[in-house]
């Protein structure tokens, strides 16, 4: 198991190197960030000084090596726009996104898996058909449009919930969180609901498909023949058998949501990293784009790794195969 993890970590380092080169070249191939950095009426002298200060006069490979050198010391550079270390900038925005994502993915799983299992267990009942209809909607409707509808319904028309921002926050471990205050919780609700709809639909489908297949197997028939109640069969046998794809998707969705809460954060003015990346794309804030993409890549590699480890924990067959 340890050898397996070490091998995977080495692999991950190599992948990160390749990604850093790709991202760096890609991001630096477009646009001229000078226009962002200085005002159009600056003198030629200031212009050249700025270019030199940011190393923009160097050839691309040299810039990349410099970047790698700084990276090795944990320095991602400074944001052109915010004029602060990129890493600080990203980490100041991360808790907001983390909080939103966790609320969305946890909510979607806690609700989606039981409903999906029911729909798979009784595929022909009207309740199941209603669950599937909601899931198809959640799967099909673009997140950003649902966000608009939620704002229009609950914030504009009914006035029950706030339409944007994080609201009041309270500190825990030195970080500000919205979910610790009532006001913050109210602010968190709509964006989290918005973000969770797609994940909910996904969990329902996964749980339903898994349950449908498992219910037809001899494992279930044998358990029934031994007199187990349907509840025990669903909870102890079926849930364990469908857990593997669900855990995978949970991990991957957690990762992808963390990376792409862009639309939701934009609509609800949620000050997270998604909003940051969209802003940095439109302002050509290269260091932020590069650092963000690399962090996302790193993040995904870590998630894939932990999903693999979780697999081994959930499927004893894999455990012995690797130990052998």
């Amino acid at each position, binding site marked *: 198991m340890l050898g397996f993890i070490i091998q995977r970590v080495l692999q991950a380092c190599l992948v990160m190197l390749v990604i850093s080169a790709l991202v760096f070249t890609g991001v630096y191939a477009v646009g001229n960030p000078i226009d962002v950095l200085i005002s159009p009426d600056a003198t030629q002298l200031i212009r050249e000084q700025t270019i030199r200060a940011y190393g923009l006069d160097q050839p691309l490979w040299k810039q990349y090596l410099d970047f790698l050198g700084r990276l090795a010391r944990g320095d991602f550079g400074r944001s052109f726009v915010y004029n602060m270390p990129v890493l600080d900038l990203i980490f100041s925005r991360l808790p907001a996104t983390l909080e939103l994502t966790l609320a969305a993915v946890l909510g979607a799983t806690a609700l989606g898996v039981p409903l999906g299992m029911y729909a798979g267990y009784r595929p022909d009942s009207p309740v199941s058909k209603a669950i599937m209809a909601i899931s198809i909607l959640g799967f099909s409707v673009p997140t950003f449009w649902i966000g608009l509808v939620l704002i229009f319904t609950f914030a504009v028309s009914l006035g029950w919930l706030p339409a944007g921002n994080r609201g009041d926050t309270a500190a825990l471990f030195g970080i500000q969180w919205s979910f610790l205050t009532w006001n913050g919780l109210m602010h968190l609700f709509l964006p989290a609901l918005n973000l969770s709809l797609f994940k909910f639909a996904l969990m329902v489908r996964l749980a339903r498909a898994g349950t449908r297949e498992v219910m037809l197997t001899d494992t279930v028939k044998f358990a*029934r023949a031994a007199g187990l109640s349907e509840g025990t069969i669903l909870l102890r*046998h079926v849930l364990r058998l469908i857990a593997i794809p669900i855990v995978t998707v949970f991990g991957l969705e957690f990762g992808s949501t963390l990376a792409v809460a862009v639309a939701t954060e934009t609509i609800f003015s949620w000050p997270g990293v998604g909003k940051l990346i969209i802003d940095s794309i439109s302002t050509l804030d290269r260091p932020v784009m590069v650092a963000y993409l690399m962090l996302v890549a790193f993040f995904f590699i870590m998630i894939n790794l932990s999903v693999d480890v979780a697999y081994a924990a959930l499927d004893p067959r894999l455990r012995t195969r690797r130990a052998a």
Partner: protein
Amino acid sequence: MSPVLLDVNGLTTRFATRAGSLHAVEDVSFTVAEGEIIGLVGESGSGKSVTGFSILGLIDPPGRIVAGSVKLNGRELVGLSHAALRSMRGREIAMVFQDPSATLNPVLTIETQMRLAIAAHENLGDAAARARCIEVLGAVGIPDAARRIEAYPHQFSGGMRQRVAIAIALLNRPKLIICDEPTTALDVSIQAQILTEMKSLAARLLVMYAGRLIEAGPIAEVLRQPRHPYTRGLLGSLPGIARPGQDLVQIPGAMPSLIDLPQGCAFQPRCGFADALCATMPALNGEGARSFRCHHPLAAESAP
């Protein structure tokens, strides 16, 4: 003779399909006495498994027991509530399936699976439940049961896995065990081993074809002297019975679709003796301990 344990009478199970009603089991009647072992043979699709599932009340929609009765110790099982059937399953009638690698849950330990089966019927303490599991595992011949009980199914060989499945079936000391081809998925040598231990020499043999019983009788007699042409064809196709050097005899044709059965005897399209009379369904005629469903039974020779 021992008292009758199971009395199946006129059992008829059908599946509603888009193409029509599938007659999986038609008018099947037989009894099993306490301590008796009976064998049910027939091609795949002849209704053996469905008969077993019908007895357990495990027919899922679109399937349904449309007629007949199943009595266990005189108590009618057909029409019982789900809850009553559930508490009967495992405790009074248990079932072992073909392929142990498909029946055992790969992600739960043997102990967990056995404990779930006990907990379905009895509230034993932790220690007592574990002790019962180890005891039964030992009884079916799992060596070092106290340690092996924590293993997962994939850590057992195929034969051992089937023993585990049998142990689970035995856990609640059922009066009747239905074994649905318990050795089909195993190696031939292991098949022989398990069958020997299950005392495969059943006292009575029932032969099914296209959902109906077509012949029944004491096993030695049926094997030596089949009365139904189908039984003879079936025996002729067995490697163990054919003479060395001779080709195995195949029954021409294939079993008819259970949705679209021929008029009368279902075997008639494949039967060399068929005539106009066979368009009517023959009754299951008894002759002493023997019975057969045929208008033109093979001759009962007085001396072989």
